[in-house]
């Protein structure tokens, strides 16, 4: 207690940075509370699910320096498990999403255990290969419904009495999952553990020489990231009442990389902004003759060439320079 109050100048600066973050968070929350009245709720819910998915991915690339090219495996696994739990086991929607997240975490433990000792491109390749294995299991296994996926998933009644078939309660449910997930990720980034993650990202050999078993720290981060990504997938499957192979393809792993890169790697808000842009483009341009993938590819190129820090990253950089 006394150390924080007696600490002068610079910790105060950190605190003001934090209150800035709090203000931003409240602003975003206000926007999100208003959003279902301004936009089509299912669209906003889709954005929220993908934003949470990207934020989970960002925990690895932004704060540990690991580029996972297989995160769709967790998103998709979460979607399938939550779908199965809701449809076949008739479980509470919240329990279904939590089970999806736990399942993703267990898969993350297995994938992470195999991948985490590798670095750079080899880490990315192993995650890609393992996620492809998960994809083929999803194609073959009977409970995923193969090409059809799991359809007509009941949204059910939250705690037995809140009818999630109504748009607004469902929106509130997804928003709560989103806020909880984002808070958990934010807490991790600003925790003693997060500090060690940043140290490992900055200089792994030095972290080892200080006595840290870096593989263990990376694995914990990987499992958390996988679990949150899977919870996002679970929420998505309840929103669309559908879990399908689309959720688990490598293109989905690519999409989450794009969202994060565009929004800003290593920023808290970046994945959210990236998700808003990419999902909006996909939804509203789907009706145009322009192939969406070409347009998104063009944006990707522009992002890499012109604003490498991503949108939020560039804004933060600009604010810091002033």
């Amino acid at each position, binding site marked *: 207690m006394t*150390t*924080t109050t007696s*600490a002068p*100048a*610079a*910790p105060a*600066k950190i605190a003001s940075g934090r209150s800035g973050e709090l203000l931003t968070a409240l602003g975003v929350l206000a926007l999100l509370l208003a959003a279902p009245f301004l936009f089509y709720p299912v669209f906003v819910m889709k954005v929220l699910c993908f934003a949470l998915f990207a934020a989970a991915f960002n925990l690895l690339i932004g704060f540990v320096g690991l580029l996972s090219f297989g995160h769709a495996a967790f998103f998709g696994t979460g979607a399938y498990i939550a779908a199965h739990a809701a449809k076949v086991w008739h479980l509470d929607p919240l329990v279904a999403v939590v089970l999806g997240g736990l399942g993703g975490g267990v898969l993350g433990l297995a994938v992470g255990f195999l991948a985490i000792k590798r670095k750079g491109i080899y880490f990315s390749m192993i995650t890609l290969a393992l996620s492809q294995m998960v994809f083929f299991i999803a194609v073959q296994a009977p409970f995923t419904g193969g090409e059809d996926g799991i359809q007509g998933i009941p949204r059910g009644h939250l705690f037995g009495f809140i009818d999630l078939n109504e748009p607004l309660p469902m929106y509130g449910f997804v928003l709560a999952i989103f806020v909880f997930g984002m808070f958990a990720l934010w*807490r*991790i980034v*600003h*925790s*003693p*553990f*997060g*500090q*060690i993650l*940043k*140290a490992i990202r*900055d*200089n792994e*050999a*030095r*972290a*080892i*020489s*200080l*006595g*840290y*078993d*870096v593989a263990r*720290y990376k694995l*914990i981060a990987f499992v*958390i990231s996988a679990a949150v990504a899977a919870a996002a997938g679970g929420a998505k499957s309840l929103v669309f009442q559908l879990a399908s192979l689309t959720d688990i393809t490598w293109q989905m792993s690519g999409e989450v990389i794009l969202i994060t890169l565009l929004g800003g790697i290593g920023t808290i808000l970046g994945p959210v902004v990236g998700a808003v842009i990419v999902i909006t483009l996909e939804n509203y341009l789907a009706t145009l003759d322009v192939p969406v993938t070409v347009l998104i590819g063009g944006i990707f190129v522009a992002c890499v060439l012109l604003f490498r820090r991503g949108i939020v990253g560039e804004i933060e950089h600009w604010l810091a320079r002033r």
Partner: protein
Amino acid sequence: MSPPDAILEARGLTKEFLGFVAVNNVNLSVRRGSIHALIGPNGAGKTTVFNLLTKFLTPTRGAIVFDGVDVTAEQPAAVARRGLVRSFQISATFPHLTVLENVRVALQRKAGLATQFWRSDRILGQLDDRARELVAAVNLEPYLHAHAVDLSYGRKRALEIATTLALDPVMLLLDEPMAGMGHEEIDRVVDLIRAAAQGRTVLMVEHNLSVVSHLCDTISVLQRGEVIAEGSYEHVSADPRVREAYMGMEEA
């Protein structure tokens, strides 16, 4: 055969890279509480020996004993936890953390504040006083909240020493702590090392014989992967093989 007061011992240490013998049957014994230098010309195998001793490389043959325990098969992080802590030839800091945070990272593990992902990092404030002392000891207090990436080269090295001392290591291994430094900076680092060596053992790798002359108690000279001379500066510098190894280079 080994002196009873040896804290670190290498016995028959050998490292081969695809048939190339970088380090050949090196026997090294570092006396507890001494400052020991391992010197040699470029390519003599100094850094390889160093990496073997800190377990960043695995020896092809031979054994390493630290404080009476055979650590030959241990992981680098594990020997670090035993108190055998190394520095790096290229200054090793966490560039995007502040000076205070750099030192705090070293303090976190022993304080049990390293794996808690559910708590606010404000709890790390309890380490600030100790971190400040360490930063002040290397004269970096004005830069407490500067990012390490923005420090000058000499100050990065000072920060690295403060971070290393935060672990309160039993023994320090310094990899060319004076590399790439000007004269005044060298004097500062020599003072820092002397201060850090209080109550500890130091083994440093150095390229330049003259800078270690006043600092070190014992000097081992490495040439083509083998120890060719060992002893005090006077003894070593008078050795004809050492003079030959250093011919054409800066003489002491």
